[in-house]
């Protein structure tokens, strides 16, 4: 069996992203959000989860300023972050439209969408009040 996730498991995430909508799996059994998408809820192993719209509001758990991105197509410097969404899930993303000295671990951020290499990617900017 290949290691790929179940076919179509993540389609809705990317379809919604094309519409600039951020979604995440929410379990119908335990109500927990999780990410990345899994066949079963990692909290209670239920398969009754569905994608729901996220507020896109979260906190920077950690970040790293990358000065040597993998290739020239990426911005340089590139701020890669681990975002903790307020709904209790996490994802890798970027912090954009600010300088590394304007924020720190724990700063509040909000999701936006940016067309990168033909895909609408969720990225994050500093929330008002943190700027």
């Amino acid at each position, binding site marked *: *069996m290949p290691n790929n996730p179940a076919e179509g498991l*993540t389609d809705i995430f990317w379809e919604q992203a094309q519409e600039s909508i951020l979604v995440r799996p929410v379990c119908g059994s335990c109500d927990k959000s999780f*990410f990345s998408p899994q066949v079963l809820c990692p909290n209670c192993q239920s398969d009754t989860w569905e994608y729901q719209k996220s507020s896109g509001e979260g906190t920077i*758990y950690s970040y790293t*300023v990358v*000065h040597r991105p993998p290739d020239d197509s990426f911005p340089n410097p*590139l701020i890669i972050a681990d975002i903790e969404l307020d709904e209790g899930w996490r994802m*890798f*993303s970027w912090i954009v439209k600010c300088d590394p000295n304007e924020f*720190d671990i724990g700063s509040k951020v909000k999701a936006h969408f940016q067309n990168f290499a033909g895909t609408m990617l969720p990225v994050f900017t500093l929330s008002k009040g943190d700027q």
Partner: protein
Amino acid sequence: MNLNAAIAGIGLTKQSKSLSMSSIAVCVEALNLALEDAGITLDEVDGIAARWPGPGGTSFDSGVIDWSGVLGTSFRWVGDTYPQGIPGVLDAAAAVSAGLCDVAVIFGGQAGVLGESELATYTRPKNEFVEPWGLFTAAHFALIANVYFQRFKPDRDRLSYAAATIRNAGAINPNAVMYGRGPYTPEDIVSSPIICEPFHLLDLCLATEGASAVVVTTVERARDCPNPPIRILGGSSEWYRQQYVDPPRYDEVGDLGKDALARTFGIAGLSPRDIDVYELYDINTWEVIRQFETMGLCDSGEGVEFVYENGIGLGERFPTNTDGGLLSFSHTGWGGPTLKIVEAVTQLRGTAKTGQVIEAETALVTGAGSGAQYFNAAVLGIDR
């Protein structure tokens, strides 16, 4: 617990930035060197843990590498879960000890794949929630290290001491890819370009080509071999999450390895301070520091000072990565974890041409790390 298992042979090919041969060929070269070293012929090999599926693997496609076909033999035991490094050797030790097979070989490496590219492809895992944002393996580790740096504010120059010391061990080792490169001062480390904060170029491991192999058999069989047996005294693993899929967090994996190390030392009947030589998985400078903390030699956040005060160079209290490590000796992708075992065995035989710890009787070997979200450890020792 007494595992009836020992390492009877080791094989190490030339390590280089680029080798003009195939990965299969360089792996078989390492295997043959290890068998020659053990004085054992291929006929006697009945167990194998090596990368690529088969026989009994998970891909049935035509052209898939099948070691029984490549080597023209059949096996009693195949380790297919994590067929390299410490988990491969521990599984083989258990298999040999239980009589599932008599002679197991563990090997891995790469050649003809890196080319001129600055970034090895295996450092950019293809996952739809990772790759589009430009993640690479060092960045996963940087996300964890940055939390540590903010929380504990370690002295950067003293952190650099660890990188400089390990790289300087490689600088004098003719077999190291970075032979002749150095000596480095801590200032040189932070003067090198920043790749992903807090890591500078000289904080990060190599991506190189070459292969390595070990032969595991029973202690009795190993005693008949030309070289003294090196016993597998204990080991353990921690599999926290699949590597490089979801964001690793300091609060979850900052002490990854604590359980595996405690269990390893418990099985071996030794404590971290009893070890004569430490072959730690130095994927970056900070991971070396972190492992001194997870061994329990110092508290979280104190590793930089502990390592600086006690010393990790030859002749110091905790001689570490005596061949130059992944930072300077070599890091051959999936074959990298096996390199650590080969150096530990070399040290315990007392045959290292450089970096030899005098009368080393026990060695700690580790693999993987916090950013990979899994970790493993083993203690090796001379046959008493």
